[in-house]
């Protein structure tokens, strides 16, 4: 593994927040989704999990969120577990309340914290505007397109201004232009607020553009294949996207991913 270094522009990063140690997960049907995963997430990290479909990215994210218990290994939080930690989570599927309007779905996390509808309204509206859903406040999920549902889910995860943001392929259902826009928005937000992000993606470009570290995973069994440090300064903008450095980094990450996939498909097919 590449030793961690402070990324320029993100001085706060570096204090370990969570370590996964030899974490494994075998489901009751015998499928080993994860095996012997070691990973450290540092405070202020923008960490991407990159890997082929079915390699255990979602499972790893759920373990990090505490939604799934690992069958082997341990999770070490640097904070006391009791400490109120606000976590934002974007599920791979939209996971909206089918009976609630878009507004109410985004309001939900605040509502659960006791914030009234009117108090929540400014924050909710602002986020809905950010994800280009103004005007759909009163629609229910079944009246939305796939991408719109996902955007509601993203808005919901951000509405509490969480200190830890866990996102499972949040932008997969969006067109590239909107995706770029939201990428920029997210980066901006991250630089302003310095929360920690674990970001599951299957897009090399996206992971390189966004994160300071990329954990490339391989499948069968799901494991950490290699960690890639993205040594590019923040803020990153459209200029970065067209820079040769970006292209080089992408090629590097892509190569790692290809070897990760080959190490899988070779075994399977």
């Amino acid at each position, binding site marked *: 593994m590449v030793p961690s270094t402070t990324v320029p522009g993100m001085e706060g990063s570096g204090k370990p927040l969570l370590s996964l140690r030899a974490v494994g997960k075998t489901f009751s049907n015998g499928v080993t989704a994860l095996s012997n995963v070691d990973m450290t997430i540092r405070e202020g990290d923008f960490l991407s999990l990159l890997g082929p479909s079915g390699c255990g990215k979602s499972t790893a994210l*759920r373990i990090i*969120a*505490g*939604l799934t218990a690992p069958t082997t290994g341990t999770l070490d939080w640097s904070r006391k577990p009791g400490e*109120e930690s606000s*976590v934002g*989570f974007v*599920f791979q*599927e939209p*996971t909206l*309340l*089918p*009976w*609630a309007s878009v507004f109410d779905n985004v309001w*939900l*996390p605040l*509502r*659960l*914290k006791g914030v009234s509808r009117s108090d929540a309204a400014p924050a909710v509206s602002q986020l809905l505007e950010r994800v280009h859903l103004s005007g759909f406040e009163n629609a*229910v*999920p*079944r009246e939305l397109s796939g991408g719109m549902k996902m955007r509601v889910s993203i808005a919901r995860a951000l509405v*509490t201004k969480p200190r830890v943001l866990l996102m499972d392929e949040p932008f997969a259902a969006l067109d590239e232009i909107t995706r770029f826009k939201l990428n920029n928005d997210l980066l901006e937000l991250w630089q302003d607020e310095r929360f920690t992000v674990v970001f599951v993606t299957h897009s090399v470009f996206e992971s390189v553009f966004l994160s300071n570290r990329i954990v490339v995973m391989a499948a069968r069994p799901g494991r950490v294949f290699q960690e890639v440090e993205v040594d590019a300064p923040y803020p990153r903008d459209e200029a970065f996207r067209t820079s040769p450095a970006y292209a080089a980094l992408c090629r590097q990450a892509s190569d790692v991913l290809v070897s990760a996939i080959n190490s899988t498909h070779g075994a399977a097919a």
Partner: protein
Amino acid sequence: MTAVESSVATLDPEEARRLRRERLERIGSWVLPLAIMVLAIWLWDRICVWNEIPQYILPRPGVVLQTLYNDAALLFGSLLVTLRITFLGLLLAVVGGVGLAVLFAQSKWVEMSFFPFAIVLQVTPIVAIFPLINIYVDNQTAKLLLCAWIVAFFPILSNTTLGLNSVDRNLRDLFRLNGATRWQELWHLRLPAAMPYFLGGLKIAGGLSLIGAVVAEFVAGASGQSSGLASRIIEAGYRLNAPRLFAALILISLAGIVIFLVLSLVSHLILRRWHESALKQER
């Protein structure tokens, strides 16, 4: 371009057919049930005539209708008495059924510990335990309500429990992550998600609480003036007054149908924005 033109020609009739079918369906959805009802009544009449069934065994529908009209004051008065118990019983069944379901949803332990008692209540024949109720419950209405409740609460309990346990796993995780309390999860997630199941149970319980009210009256008796339909049935049966007996039965049936329709409407209104079972087929 011939292909397209020919297809235009073939499409129009299809569109027309669709429209025609839709119109037909709109009309049919009212006319057909009525027609079938009328047919059933006609059949009943014919069966009486063909088999020369004497009136004192199975009166012809005309006679029953006539009786319904003649005895209207008496019968509708009794209907009101029965409906009062029905609604109160249904109300209690909803409160009791949902309340218990919520309790059971709190923990597997609670469910395993107390569900048996709910089953005992469901399967105990009221006739058999009525003497006990009679000894320990003084108020007549309370007796009737207790009986009606025992009959009606179980479907609501069972269906609501099922619904509360059928919540999407990811949504539950979402609530966990946001630090929702048990109560919040129940209120904002489980109960709304259980709605379709609960409403299904309610539709069953509607009819059951009606039958519960009738059975309660059969068992618990009714005091003099304020006697419901069950007393009328017993009385008519004893007096060999078959037309009145059937008139009372028909009132019960009609009440049952109306209750079902009302509950279906309620269910539709609650679910129509989101649940498959209530969505209009939008094409």
